């Protein structure tokens, strides 16, 4: 049995218990620790999750205040040691503002998660979308390896989810697939080019960005909110929608499409 998965609870996050349940659903042990009481636990953690929500109420810019917290020093060191680190939504924003991902130049903030850019609307967007595996290898997307072009339905909910860089060098890296672990796609599996398939205008349709080691993932969608069959709306269609339609009451608690990210973590820690 591997060690515990540490879930760091910053003030204002709201997905820590869902993340813990998803971890436990794949047979891992996890614990939630507050950001100012987590330093020791980070050093011992088998893996680290920065959950979704609004750390510090998204004041100034989503994720930036948490990124300056001392506990992130230890998270950065852990990520450099190869410890799996998953940032979901607000956690992804923290990882980007810390520079842990993509980490092309050590310690530099290469990207931003900017406000959504959507046709005909502004602000927060909450829906199910499709993603598929990107070209970069990442331990959290290991479950997608067999069918990399299969669209995976997954929920998202954010106002600032547009991966964007102003650097030509970084853009060239991303264009060649470096760091691009998960991309938004259509229901047919084509890389998304516009809203709503690309729900925020992210450059290169990036939904998840990893570091060079493939052990840290900044993921804007919420796999923990789609980790059980009952969470999948019927309108999603495809394999997952059909299986949701067909299951009996007991099977509603079988695995949903987001479970794979946590299954991959379990396999990596085995």
């Amino acid at each position, binding site marked *: 049995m591997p060690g515990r998965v540490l879930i760091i609870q910053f003030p204002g996050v709201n997905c820590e218990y869902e993340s813990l349940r998803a971890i436990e659903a794949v047979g891992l042990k996890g614990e939630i620790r507050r950001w100012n009481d987590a330093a020791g636990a980070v050093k011992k953690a088998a893996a680290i999750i920065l959950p979704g929500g609004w750390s510090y109420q998204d004041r100034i810019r989503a994720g930036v205040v948490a990124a300056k*917290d001392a506990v992130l020093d230890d998270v950065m060191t852990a990520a450099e040691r190869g410890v799996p680190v998953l940032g979901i939504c607000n956690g992804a924003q923290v990882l980007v503002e810390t520079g842990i991902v993509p980490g092309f130049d050590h310690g530099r*903030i290469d990207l931003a998660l900017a406000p959504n850019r959507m046709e005909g609307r*502004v602000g927060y967007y909450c829906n199910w979308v499709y993603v598929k595996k990107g070209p970069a290898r990442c331990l959290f997307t290991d479950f997608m390896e067999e069918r990399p072009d299969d669209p995976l339905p997954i929920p998202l909910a954010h106002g600032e989810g547009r991966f964007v860089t102003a650097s030509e060098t970084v853009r060239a890296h991303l264009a060649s697939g470096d760091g691009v672990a998960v991309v938004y796609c259509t229901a047919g599996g084509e890389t998304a080019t516009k809203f709503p398939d690309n729900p925020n205008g992210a450059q290169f349709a990036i939904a998840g960005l990893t570091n060079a080691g493939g052990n840290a993932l900044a993921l804007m969608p919420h796999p923990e909110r789609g980790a059980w069959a009952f969470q999948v709306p019927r309108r999603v269609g495809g394999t997952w929608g059909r299986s949701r339609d067909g299951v009996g009451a007991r099977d509603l608690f079988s695995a949903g499409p987001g479970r794979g990210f946590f299954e991959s973590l379990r396999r990596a820690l085995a």
Partner: protein
Amino acid sequence: MTRIDARLLVGLRGPDLAASTARLALIEKMGFGDRLLGLRRYDFFHLTIEAAAPAATVTDALTRTLAAQSTFYNRNKHMYSLACRWDGGEKVEGPTRAELVARFGQTLGTRVGTQVGIDFDGKGEGKADIVKESSAFLVEVFVQDDDSAGRDAIAAKLTRELTASVGQGSVKVLCPGRATVWWLAVRAADETTAMETARQITVTRRRDEGLLMNPNYQTAEFVSAGRVDTVRS
């Protein structure tokens, strides 16, 4: 044809928690405690208005429109300062910029130098002694996002509303600037050093550098506004 240049600052009447969080992060997490004396945050809108009607009519309509809708502010929690200028005239609504700077100065100086005793009677004698020694400069930082959609929406809405309100031909509103403005009171020996400190506080290039803007999607304009009087009287 009347052409009016309007600059609107909107701030909170009560405590601004985002500004407080920024100040605490800069002082306690990023080590700017010896240089950052104070920080205020405003929303800034730069509007240009072209109309056939006289300037006084248009500016009256503008202030009525601002007061009646929530695009810019909520009168229960916000204050605003509006400065309109046109050929041969100007109109200021709310506190002037000089008044805002003076109010800001009165809030400064409590963290400088030696330890100050807790001030239960509200007189703050110790604070005045300390701030007299400080040399503070005000730097205004305009942080703007890369997205013009919000500005276009504001301009379109104001164009419709002002045209209806003025009632003397069409009114055309543009919104060339919309930014978050950070007023930074920086302790520095001179203006150049203060500007450099403001840049260090603002631009996030690495985790331990800058807080207020991410250059991957935002731009920042720095304006030096000279010394700020921090002495409490």
